């Protein structure tokens, strides 16, 4: 039995049944934007906005999503939205939060909570925006940051980022005659966010829309910093067909390449089950042009690494405790 059958509420097949109850009909990210067909990132943003609701201000880093959504004089955004530059969405978002907070305290705007949400691609988050993100999270702004990780700089032509997987071919780490693609392993940013003592950290993908939206809702409630790392397929950059966008996110989970979990107050929990016997990574890699050059040996190296990563995560899930429970134990 695959995950889809075992956990119907996590998957898209039952969407018709559950959607009216779980998903707002309101659209905050309008159609008519210029994303490629089958873009996982645009879909994820649409779902994120539904989960966030209207009392939200979005700060968007430069990247595909800013470009496809805001071609003057049009805008896809039906939420207050600001774009400033590539490296600074976390910093701008922290200013938005500070501004709203000060104005609310001083009675200059309506007395209700408006959430500052900053978003960026893997490049804008993990590389050039990393310092700003670290600073904003460490300063404990009441802000949610969502990274949309499509594993390369797509807006500028599929260049490698620190989110690019091992051996994937990109335009700056190409599969050459001598060097077979990206030579290092993907940076684990959710883990780095956990190390910032961020109260809520989660991984997600629009391939499990309810799981993703629940996480967004939960993160929105947190009075302080929260971080969601959202894995999004990019058919253009991955050289995969556009109809496989959802499937690839599911395969990434079922193979253990991108497990879906959350870390609340330090406690790890898997939110979408993965089959006892995980699918081989090959199932995920094979449909994507960026991995086309891989040899069986190379695929084996990836499999072993993913197995170890998986085990590491399982150990955390089993042994981690929330800070609250540790505190309670001490006072007993």
């Amino acid at each position, binding site marked *: 039995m695959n995950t889809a059958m075992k956990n119907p509420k996590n998957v898209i097949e039952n969407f018709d049944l559950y959607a009216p109850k779980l998903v707002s009909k309101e659209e905050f990210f309008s159609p008519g934007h210029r994303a490629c067909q089958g873009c996982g990132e645009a879909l994820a943003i649409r779902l994120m906005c539904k989960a966030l609701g209207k009392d939200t201000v979005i700060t968007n880093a430069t990247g595909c999503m800013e470009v496809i959504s805001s071609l003057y004089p049009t805008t896809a955004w039906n939420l207050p939205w*600001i*774009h*400033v*530059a590539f490296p600074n969405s976390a910093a701008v978002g922290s*200013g938005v939060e500070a*501004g709203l907070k000060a104005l609310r305290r001083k009675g200059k705007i309506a007395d209700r909570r408006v959430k500052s949400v900053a978003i960026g691609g893997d490049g804008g988050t993990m590389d050039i925006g990393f310092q700003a993100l670290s600073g904003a999270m460490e300063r404990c702004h009441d802000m949610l940051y969502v990274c949309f990780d499509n594993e390369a700089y797509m807006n500028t032509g599929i260049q490698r980022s620190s989110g690019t997987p091992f051996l994937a071919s990109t335009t700056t780490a190409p599969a050459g005659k001598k060097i077979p693609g990206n030579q290092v392993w993907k940076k684990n940013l959710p883990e780095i966010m956990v190390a910032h003592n961020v109260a809520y950290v989660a991984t997600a993908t629009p391939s499990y829309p309810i799981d993703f939206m629940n996480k967004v809702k939960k993160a929105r409630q947190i009075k302080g910093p929260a971080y969601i790392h959202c894995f999004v397929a990019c058919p253009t950059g991955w050289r995969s067909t556009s109809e496989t966008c959802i499937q690839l996110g599911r395969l990434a989970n079922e193979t253990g390449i991108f497990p879906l979990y959350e870390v609340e107050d330090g406690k790890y929990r898997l939110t979408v089950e993965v089959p006892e016997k995980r699918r081989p990574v090959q199932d995920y890699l094979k449909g994507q042009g960026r991995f086309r050059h891989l040899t069986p040996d190379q695929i084996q190296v990836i499999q072993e690494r993913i197995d170890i990563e998986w085990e590491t995560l399982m150990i955390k899930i089993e042994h981690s405790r929330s800070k609250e429970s540790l505190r309670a134990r001490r006072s007993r």
Partner: protein
Amino acid sequence: MGKRVGMEVAIASAEAAALCRFDVAAVYPITPQSHVAEHLSDIVADGRVDASFITVESEHSALSAAIGSEATGARTVTATSSQGLLFMSEILPIASAMRLPIVMLIANRAVSGPINIWNDHSDIMPMRDTGWISFFAENGQEVVDMTIHAFKVGEHRDVMLPVNVNMDGFQLTHMVEPIIMPEQEEVDRFLPPYIPYATLHPDRIVSMGTLGMPEIFAEAQKSKNVAIVNSIKVIKEVWKEWEAQFGRKYEPVQSYRTEDADIALVTMGSMGETAEIAVDELRKQGVKAGLLKIKLWRPFPFDDFKAAIKGIKVLAVTDRAVSFGGPGGPVFSEIRSALYEEAVRPAIVNYIIGLGGRDVQVEDFIAMVKKASGGKLSEPYEFYGVRG
């Protein structure tokens, strides 16, 4: 009216921002601006102003956070210097393009390399063309007054631009000067609450910072230029209003003993006071010297400058920054080009002085004037008093 205090100028600049009741400060420390950052945080920590102080992790984030908060409608102040200003450079033109009236206090300092913490203008000069209004203060009083002017000018509906107030690092920031600190009630009367044009709030949804294609990008640039060019009218009005209320007069170009002058020095910033003494000394010696002090660098006050030089035969323009491989210092190039169309125009020479904190004394200005009296130097521009 106001109380006379002896106060370190950096601290006074933060006090002036406090009198403007800022809502948010986002500042990263750097010598010689640090006392500004520290004092702003003191003011917030003591609850003297109801504001948020964001302890950003860099200057890039300082200005980015300032944009975020200003975009919500919060009156926002930041401050920096030298490397910090250059680190912000990516964001400077975006702040002005978004028409956000952030106020930035700049403790001018040399730009590395070699690394040097002392004063010159090599930080602000490369940032000249970013669409910010730039004031240059000559003393502590001007720093305080101009900080207050900056909010009023920037927030004016006909302007809506960020403003920087330049104060020479150490020479001003670390000096204890006699300053008349306006009363809160006086500043409240002068500076109305900030009413932003558009803000980030769900009650009135806007998209800010959208993508400009070639069909619109040039228009966006032109409109920013129109705004800054036209801002001179508002700046003058604000200065008139200030003079009426506080009795201190501000002009884009301030003349000193130029009525019958044959030769005039041109300065920006704190050196004006030293140059004044040199002019007095020269006058005693029978040299008809004068001085022009530029207080408004952007928008450049072309008409005021042309009016101010009537009758002057030689201008000795001083620059505290180098335009490497260019025609001379930035102030000099600006003035020479501004006067090109004039039927009668003075000879213009250029001295590059006071780099990286190099002291320039009264005798130096006297020597510069004497050497320039013929209207020509042996080189197009001279690094005055520099070896090699």
